[in-house]
């Protein structure tokens, strides 16, 4: 086959290929987004069932010593740097 014809086919394939990959994955984006709206989240019922336990927990987390948080985050960072 003539090379210019092959090149034309390859160019055509590039165009069709990229468009179809984008369309297909774009469709998946829409599907996943709509599923996220339709399906209730796992955490929600837990949170609504125990509003009383969550509030103190949130307060407690505010009272954690900022030095402790700093120490933990540097430890985590060091661990991740080593890996």
């Amino acid at each position, binding site marked *: 086959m003539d*090379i210019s014809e*092959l*090149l034309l*086919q*390859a*160019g055509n*394939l*590039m165009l*069709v*290929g*990229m468009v*179809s*990959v*984008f369309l*297909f*994955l*774009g*469709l*998946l*984006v829409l*599907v*996943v*987004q709509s*599923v*996220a709206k339709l*399906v*209730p*989240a*796992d*955490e929600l019922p837990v949170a609504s069932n125990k509003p009383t336990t969550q509030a103190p927990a949130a307060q407690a987390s505010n009272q954690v010593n900022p030095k402790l948080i700093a120490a933990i985050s540097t430890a985590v*960072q060091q661990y*991740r*740097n080593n890996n």
Partner: protein
Amino acid sequence: MDGLITLWHDTGIYHFEWKQLVMMAVGALLLFLAIVKKFEPLLLLPIGFGAILANIPNAGFTDPGGILYYIYEIGIGSTVFPLLIFMGVGAMTDFGALIANPKMLFLGAAAQFGIFATLFGAIALNLIPGFEFTLQDASAIAIIGGADGPTAIFLASKLAPDLLGAIAVAAYSYMALVPLIQPPIMRALTSEKERAIQMEQLRPVSKAEKILFPLLVLFACILFLPSATPLVGMFCLGNLMRESGVVDRLSGAAQNEIINTVTIFLGLAVGSKLSAEAFLSVETLGILALGAVAFSVGTGSGVMMAKVMSRLSGGKVNPLLGAAGVSAVPMAARVVNKVGLESNPQNFLLMHAMGPNVAGVLGSAVAAGVLLALVG
């Protein structure tokens, strides 16, 4: 005396041709890369050993009746092995990061430009005397840009079995080289400020969403791209076994025993294709060069797409994430994390990069399906 001569005629030394020796050296090089350099050792060790076995004179490993012949025909000729590996990869993949931020699928799509640009490049190589790639050959070579071993082997076994050895070796070698290939491209295409962008924490994803995801991907594939269903179907089966939570034993088998067993034989079968006649040609050099182009272009197009998304979102997307769109799970995501940390020590992009990373796996499977439908 006659007996001695017969014995001498039966030795390896008597029958060696220089090409076989060169191929054994290639096999030894792969073993060196696997054992000393730790380049994808799970694959390159059996591939390298397979290459040595396949080039033993008079042993007939790759002739009908030889063990490598059967392993190849049963496993790769039938496409069973790459599909079993894909099932295992599905069982190992957590789509949580992608479901939490589905727009990352666009990065997985953009990075596939590496595949299609390479296809064009492979055909353009025909302008140089000595290269005669058909459209099928070019497609099989281009899929190296998908940075996904089983997908590359699957497509090559269907479109260009003669080139399979070189394609698989190129795919796995470049996957091992991702930490060297990607960072310079990523740094060249982004500014320091862009690399320092911190991403919002991902929302938690419900179990129901994770279970529905593989089913919906399969359904979309059935409707629009049936040619990709062998790859995507096995992948989704593995992922459903993982996420459903009711067949932990099967999921465990797919992730461990099955994928490990298959990997041994997949490597040997690929190695059996590294025969002197098929590998020692100028086309192999072309394939190695095109593979590097494929990886680089894929990384670049992913980063450019991520830059566009970053602008559109008002600077909420770190453009480095685009580089993870070339699959090569999880190496590419780790590279993104590392380059991100260089610009901003507080910026942990690993979880965010897993989204485009697994999107890249889907993207390359889809691209393989498209190529199969159009040129297969």
